[in-house]
């Protein structure tokens, strides 16, 4: 009798966990899987490819070889032979190499800033939502205040203190994006906290923090994931706008945002400068968004497919 129960228990344990279920569901979503692979490829390209020798240094200028078309080779006036995979920009730098290096910066900024905003936002929102009452009101008013602060002015003023550097950039961006995240999480937590499983947890004597972290937050994953996949592109766009104002990544380094800005300026004379980085930028964001959609559908057992 006992051994049968034991065996039965083992069978049950071999069943699926939440994560495994989600992964299986994700695999069925072809678009999301394609996006995942694409994104992995982009990551590999940007972070690994430049380690190879055949990718030229993106900062070497050949002003006499400017605006060369894709797949062209030439000899610079200093006698160097160069081959341009995607052509050269207005200073003769290799566009492909700049896109790869720029990708490193953009992706780095994107993920780090999003991680910062995610961490702060989720914890803040969950605590605020669960605690309720005056504390919640105060915390949300604080969020309101920060919301109405003009991001641009703050960044401009802060760069005068710290100079233009990358760390400041993602601190600023992370410090802005967490606001909306906290609101979303708070909304979710509020609607969740009166449900039975929370009452059960409370009556079991679990501490507040345990309830928040182990039970409430995992249940907010759906909207959080969706918003994260909306955040990474937003962060990268913000970085592009900062490049427009001349803040952020400093020359000769590049990011996708600064490449697109340079391309937009020269759009009438040199469309390649805009098109190539914009396509890469766009496709990456596309893939992130579709991936996010897929993850949401996979993780949220309530969303039915019909």
């Amino acid at each position, binding site marked *: 009798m006992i051994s049968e129960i034991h065996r039965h228990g083992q069978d049950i344990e071999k069943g699926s966990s939440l994560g495994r279920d989600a992964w299986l569901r994700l695999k069925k979503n072809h678009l999301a899987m394609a996006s995942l692979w694409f994104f992995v490829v982009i990551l590999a390209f940007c972070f690994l490819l430049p380690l190879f020798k055949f990718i030229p240094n993106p900062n070497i200028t050949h002003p*006499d070889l400017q605006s060369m078309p894709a797949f062209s080779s030439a000899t610079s006036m200093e006698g160097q032979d160069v081959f341009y995979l995607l052509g050269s920009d207005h*200073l003769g730098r290799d566009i492909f190499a700049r896109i790869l290096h720029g990708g490193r910066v953009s992706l780095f900024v994107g993920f780090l800033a999003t991680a910062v905003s995610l961490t702060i936002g989720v914890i803040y929102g969950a605590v605020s939502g669960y605690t309720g009452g005056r504390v919640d009101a105060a915390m949300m008013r604080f969020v309101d205040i920060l919301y109405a602060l003009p991001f641009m002015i703050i960044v401009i003023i802060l760069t005068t203190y710290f100079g*233009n550097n990358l760390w400041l950039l993602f601190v600023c961006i992370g410090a802005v994006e967490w606001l909306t995240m906290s609101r979303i999480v708070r909304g979710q937590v509020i609607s969740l906290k009166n449900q039975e499983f929370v009452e059960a947890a409370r009556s079991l004597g679990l501490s507040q923090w345990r309830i928040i972290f182990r039970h409430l937050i995992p249940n907010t994953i759906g909207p959080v994931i969706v918003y994260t996949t909306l955040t990474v592109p937003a962060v990268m766009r913000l970085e592009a706008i900062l490049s427009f104002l*001349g803040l952020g990544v400093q*020359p000769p380094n590049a990011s996708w945002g600064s490449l697109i800005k340079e391309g937009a300026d020269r759009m*009438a*004379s040199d469309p390649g400068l805009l098109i190539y980085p914009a396509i890469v930028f766009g496709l990456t964001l596309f893939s992130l968004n579709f991936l996010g959609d897929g993850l949401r559908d996979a993780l949220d057992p309530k969303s039915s497919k019909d």
Partner: protein
Amino acid sequence: MISPRPRKIDPSLAQPCFVSVPTLFDRRLNPVSFALVGSGDGARKGAKAQRHYSSCSAALRLCVILSSAIIAFSQTSCRKERKVDIATREKILLLGNGDEPKALDPHLVSSVGDSNILRATLEGLTTFHPADDTKHEPGVAERWEPNEDFTEWKFFLRKNAKWSNGDPVTAHDFVYSYNRILHPEMAAPYASMLYFLKNGEAFNKGEIEDFAEVGVKAENDYLLVCTLERPTPFLPDVVKHTTWLPVHQPTIEKFGTMTEAFTDWQKPGNHVSNGAFQLTEWRINAHVKVRRNPHYWDAKNVKPNGINFYPIPNSFTEEKAFRNGLLHYTYIIPSNLISHYRDDNDPSLRSETYAGVYFYRCNTKEKPMDNVDFRRALAYAINQETIVKYVKMGGEQPAYGYTPPSEVGYKPPNVIEHDPQKAREFLKKAGYESGKDVPEFTVLFNTTEEHKSIAVAIQDMWKKTLGIEKVKIENQEWKVFQQTLFDMKYDVGRAGWIGDYGDPTTFLGMWQTDDSNNYTGWSNADFDRLLKESSYAKSTKDRYRILGEAEAILLDEVPILPIYWYTRVYLISPDVKNWNPLLLDNHPYKHIDLVPSGQTGKETE
């Protein structure tokens, strides 16, 4: 000052162009209703197939309708009269004018855009010749005479010069104006332009309290006598400058005291001027409009009826506005678009020499720029030809000296050139075995694409020629940049200087010890001495020789790295006549005529 709401899209567009678009919201085409009908639990298979079919066809129908609408629209493009053609007919000049003016008070401004507007509304003792920089036209003064050694100038004013409210212009107006700009409480940013006057500097710095001691007097209503600090043979050139323009005393004092800066006197309706035009409208970031001044003494010879100045800081927008038929003239044109116009041989493109120099300042008080050989190495490593040919592409000239060569006859000594060999030798002399030993330093510039491209190119040149690996380039926005220079907290800073008047001292004067525009900490007693000596030279030729010697010292010690001499590259409509190339680009607008050039111009692209 709220202007009326903008008009909706021109109704003339609505007539031949609009094609009635079949309604997109026909119920039968509505994909939603199909969807929900099919999503019931029963009869799934059939419903699914039906849904699939109808969704495809609905989407397809949508695409067809949209694309046909777009094609229909684009076929019927209407040719209405362009704004610029209307303006030509009405003889209103439409000019792009760079940045929004800081003020329309000649004693408070120092930038080119502001000066352009003030030049239209105010007139000084002398004024600009439409074609020749070296000539000075009579303005309020009919004629002028120096004394023997050029330490005193007499200006004889015409008797029929009037302000736009009918008051006569007298010598007292000029005395009042110079008092105002030199007054310490005015805090005029460019008062130093009047330091030519005896005791002008002392009065401005508060060392003298009584303006009567400053060297300008109105002997009578129509005779102005200027007594100068030093012999100044080129004073008639200087008095054309914005800072020497007169202001109307009763107007100023109606809206505040003489030295109050923020008053309403400069606003349209209050602004009283003595030039060819008067101010009629000023909307911030939108436009400044001036119209004919009927009281101007030469009103019958003023050709345009008015001018609209448009502050457009984004040069791409400005170029698009020109192509769209919204402007007669652009202030500037982005480098990368120059070749388009050149290749098409488009007569709208003009490229003219401009009295200005683009250079890098070095902070000679800090390492590593305090080493003169290191600076020489950097200077000779810059390939100016490359920058001018491939980066700027506007026909600029590589600067082999500092002061741009000009028609007044001064030629700077030919010293600076791209010489990698020499550069490497200087590097060794400076004590660096190779470029890798050079400590990190930063090149600062204010934020624009052009400065960025040049800095990147130069950074790479230093790397290739000298092997210097640790050059950082950084942009700062304008105010911060100015402060950094002021505080001397930089290594290398980008700079540009446009001449204020024809004489070379407008370029060389700033390098004297402790001059307020120096910012490099460089000081050379011989240079200072030569500059002072030049005032006492017996002839222009002699003066120029002495100034040349001074400049040779400057170029030998290179506290500044000259890069190129400016050209003005801009677009101008063929309708605009008498717009001649001028070194200082100070066009007297009254001579500019607008004549329809016969062609309707290229409407699209």
